[in-house]
């Protein structure tokens, strides 16, 4: 099983720019030109709504922008707008996503292809505005397609791909892409943006099957659904989100042909001969690549698996890629209190169990509330993995990295 993606020749030449993640996503939104955006400002997502408001004020988009009074209202308006048959987007972070929680389920249960730009932030209490994944991990069972980006370029690229994934007839689900608050959201990086025309062609036109504005063919949206039908509707949602696996790969490949940057469900780094592998999500994967290079210099057979697609979770591919390694460390930037490990590690363990493999595995919880993580610390994790390879002892399975005891 390879995680290598063939890099095709790009159809369009990109324009190099230096932008923060938030501004890059706002730029992608300008190029996508959604019919309605409903959003509320919250750190560290605020820059997105500010930049997008500028585009609206200058007539650079056709969007009806609803500057709502809360995130719950943002998602509620997105639901009404999406049911009315056009393209709808929003953006949020941390506490804002938590406030939306109730209606995130309404959006997915109503099969509305809303796109969300999620800038990861911790959840209170205590109050903290910095990055961890508590917010999007907290809604991981809400029925949304959920991918993570590593850097500004990926945040931009994912933003554009989500529209195609969400609106695919086999999926028809709300979809979000997450990227780390401040670390990506507020950091200037070099990226290449596509020409406006390329984005327009890529996302194409959206024609929904039903719309509440089609008053000549009235439809009832969001009815009461009891013991006799509810379960079947939930079963349909399960199928839809599983269908997203193939769609995410197809859209990622097409996006590669457009931009020269193909995307899959995950990305390996120095994996081919690696015995000791770290698995994770988000911006730390960039840091971990540096750590892999440092460890490789001293001859250690280490590698990295970056998960892009978290929901649906690509359990088969994960097992195929990781099942035969000597020791695996899974990085979690959020905590599932009372569980044995963080959410990502739980998924990896479940995948191994389902597919009847049991490599040595530990879980590293790190970076809560924006706590910094540097290559030397990740090298330390690799050294622990190598040590586990010698002793065979994975106790304790959950380890907290970079925290004062």
């Amino acid at each position, binding site marked *: 099983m390879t995680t290598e993606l063939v890099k095709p020749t790009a159809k369009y030449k990109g324009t190099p720019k230096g932008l923060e993640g938030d501004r890059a996503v706002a730029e992608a939104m300008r190029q996508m030109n959604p019919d309605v955006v409903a959003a509320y400002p919250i750190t560290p997502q605020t820059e997105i709504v500010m930049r997008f408001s500028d585009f609206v004020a200058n007539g650079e988009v056709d969007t009806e922008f609803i500057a709502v*009074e809360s995130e*719950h209202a943002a998602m*509620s308006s997105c639901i009404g707008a999406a049911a009315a048959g056009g393209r709808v987007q929003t953006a949020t972070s941390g506490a804002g996503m938590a406030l939306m929680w109730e209606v995130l389920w309404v959006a997915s249960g109503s099969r509305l292809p809303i796109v969300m730009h999620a800038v990861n932030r911790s959840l209170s209490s205590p109050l903290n505005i910095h990055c961890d994944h508590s917010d999007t991990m907290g809604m991981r069972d809400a029925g949304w397609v959920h991918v993570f980006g590593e850097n500004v370029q990926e945040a931009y690229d994912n933003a554009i791909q989500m529209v195609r994934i969400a609106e695919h007839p086999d999926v028809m689900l709300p979809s979000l892409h997450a990227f780390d608050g401040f670390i990506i959201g507020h950091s200037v990086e070099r990226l290449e943006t596509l020409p406006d025309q390329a984005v327009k062609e890529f996302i194409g036109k959206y024609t929904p099957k039903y719309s509440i504005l089609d008053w000549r063919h009235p*439809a009832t949206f969001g009815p009461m659904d009891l013991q006799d039908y509810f379960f079947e509707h939930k079963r349909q949602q399960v199928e839809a989100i599983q269908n997203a696996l193939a769609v995410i790969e197809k859209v990622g490949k097409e996006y590669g042909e457009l931009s020269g940057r193909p995307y899959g469900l995950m990305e390996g780094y120095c994996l081919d001969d690696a015995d000791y592998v770290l698995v994770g999500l988000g911006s730390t994967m960039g840091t971990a690549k540096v750590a892999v290079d440092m460890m490789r210099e001293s001859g250690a057979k280490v590698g990295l698996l970056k998960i892009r697609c978290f929901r649906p979770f690509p359990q088969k591919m994960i097992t195929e890629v990781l099942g035969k390694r000597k020791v695996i460390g899974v990085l979690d930037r959020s905590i599932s209190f009372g569980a044995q490990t963080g959410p990502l590690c739980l998924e990896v363990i479940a995948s191994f169990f389902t597919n009847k493999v049991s490599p040595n595995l530990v879980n590293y919880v790190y970076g809560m509330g924006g706590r910094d993580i540097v290559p030397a610390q990740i090298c330390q994790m690799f050294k622990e993995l190598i040590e586990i390879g010698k002793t065979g002892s994975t106790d304790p399975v959950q380890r907290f990295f970079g925290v004062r005891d």
Partner: protein
Amino acid sequence: MVLDLKLENVSVEKDLLAPGHRLCAGCAEPMTIRQVLHAIGEPVVVGSSTGCVEVTTTPFPFSSWRVPWIHSAFENVSSTICGAEAMYRSLVRQGKMKDEGIKFVCFAGDGATYDIGLQWISGCMERGHKYIYVCLNNEAYMNTGIQRSSATPFGAWTTTSPDGKASFGKKVHRKDVTAIMADHNIPYVAQVSPHAWRDLMEKARKAADCGGPSYINALVPCQRGWRYPGEKTIEVCRLAVDTCVWPLYEVIDGEYKLNYNPNPKRPVKDWLSSQGRFKHLMTPENAPIVEQMQAWVDLQWQRLLERCRVA
């Protein structure tokens, strides 16, 4: 849509809320909805909050709605329907859709309006979405089993404000959401009651034509929760208005206008004694509570007359 609001016209027009729904006999909600929809006609998009109307008109796979209808959650029908309204404006402005004058209407209970949903309504009013918000006000959480809301009147029994040895029922007066909405400086606000059907329908039309957000507060007696025989609904409506417990008035661009001045003005006790939820107030020891209620209604009425500049 009937142009001339006459019973002989309305009675032969197709109902946009179909018969066969599961609301209780004697419920004032379907009559209010039908009056509003007859008055404003198609094309119309309707939203409902979670509540009696939602659960009784849309038990999947059935729907009583002959118009597009959406439900999202309890507190957010305002934001949901205004999301659709924003999409309509966007698509029309971009030339992706013809402007056919689609109207957007919310029907929501008093719990969804006075309590859990107030913020969402306030936000939509402030932003100027063009929609009609109709509060179907039966003065308690009826769908969950008659719990008190902030629309429940002083002294009323509910399952969360029961009367007892140490209680005369709800201890505080209802709040005035009609005035709160008027103070949003929206173009049209009104109080209505379905017994005054022409008044209600004319007001629905004014709301639809006002060019901005509008709010209609409709008193909709609930025979189950108010404890009166189902055939008395219209009578109870009339009593509420004739006792000044539920005045009929409108606020057009900030100008208050009284639509009905009862003559004679009946004592509040007549209204209280018509419903079992106030039964415990009819004892000699609770006579001061009835007096307090009368004094409060008199004060509210006086203030309304001043606002309406009625001598």
